């Protein structure tokens, strides 16, 4: 059976955007899933499991980015990442 693909638009609502702590948290969570997960912003793409690639996207607060997950647990992965982003990465305002 071909792998399904989940594609979602998400908006960063935390105070600092995709900075060191939020990139680390996103990458660490992404690595806990088997699915290949990418984050795209404009024309730039990052492997969501790699913090340095996420940082290089320079996603500012309020920006929208696209999450794509492909693999055996893609729906769980996408849901978990969306939840992390919606929680503002647990950051205090």
């Amino acid at each position, binding site marked *: 059976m071909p792998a399904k693909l989940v594609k979602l638009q998400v908006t960063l609502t935390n105070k600092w955007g995709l900075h060191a702590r939020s990139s680390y948290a996103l990458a*660490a969570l992404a690595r806990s899933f088997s699915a290949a997960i990418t984050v795209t912003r404009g024309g730039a793409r990052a492997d969501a499991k790699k913090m340095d690639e996420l940082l290089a996207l320079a996603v500012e607060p309020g920006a929208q980015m696209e999450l794509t997950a492909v693999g055996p647990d893609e729906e769980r992965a996408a849901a978990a990442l969306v939840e992390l982003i919606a929680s503002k990465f647990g950051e205090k305002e």
Partner: protein
Amino acid sequence: MTETGSRTGVLIIAHGALAQEMLNTLEFITGPQPRARAIALDHALDVDRARAMVVEAIDALMTPKGVLVLTDLFGGAPSNIALSTLDEKNIEIVAGVNLPILIHAVSLDEALSLRAMAEALRDYGRNNIFRASDFFSGKK
């Protein structure tokens, strides 16, 4: 988000307060890292005492795979003291630690050998130094 478990131990050794501040910053970004330690070396420390501190920390962090030792400057006292334990301790030393190396050290694939981890950290540290304007003009 923490990734600790039975991770390979990481020992940071540097001049002055640098090692502890690097560890503090690492934990600010990643959360607590119980498998990481910092040792400050300065000229007030006797060499034998400094070496004993390093050996004690390596032993405390030791796993069947060994320990990753990250030092600030190749040829400096922290590196030289770590090097002096190389024959008796199962360690890999990466000199020239920076924050990207440190964060990567606690995110490494535990399936890698200790040597492969050290090589990955060396390459990661090098690859994450940029002239920032090159990055934005696509010359990365």
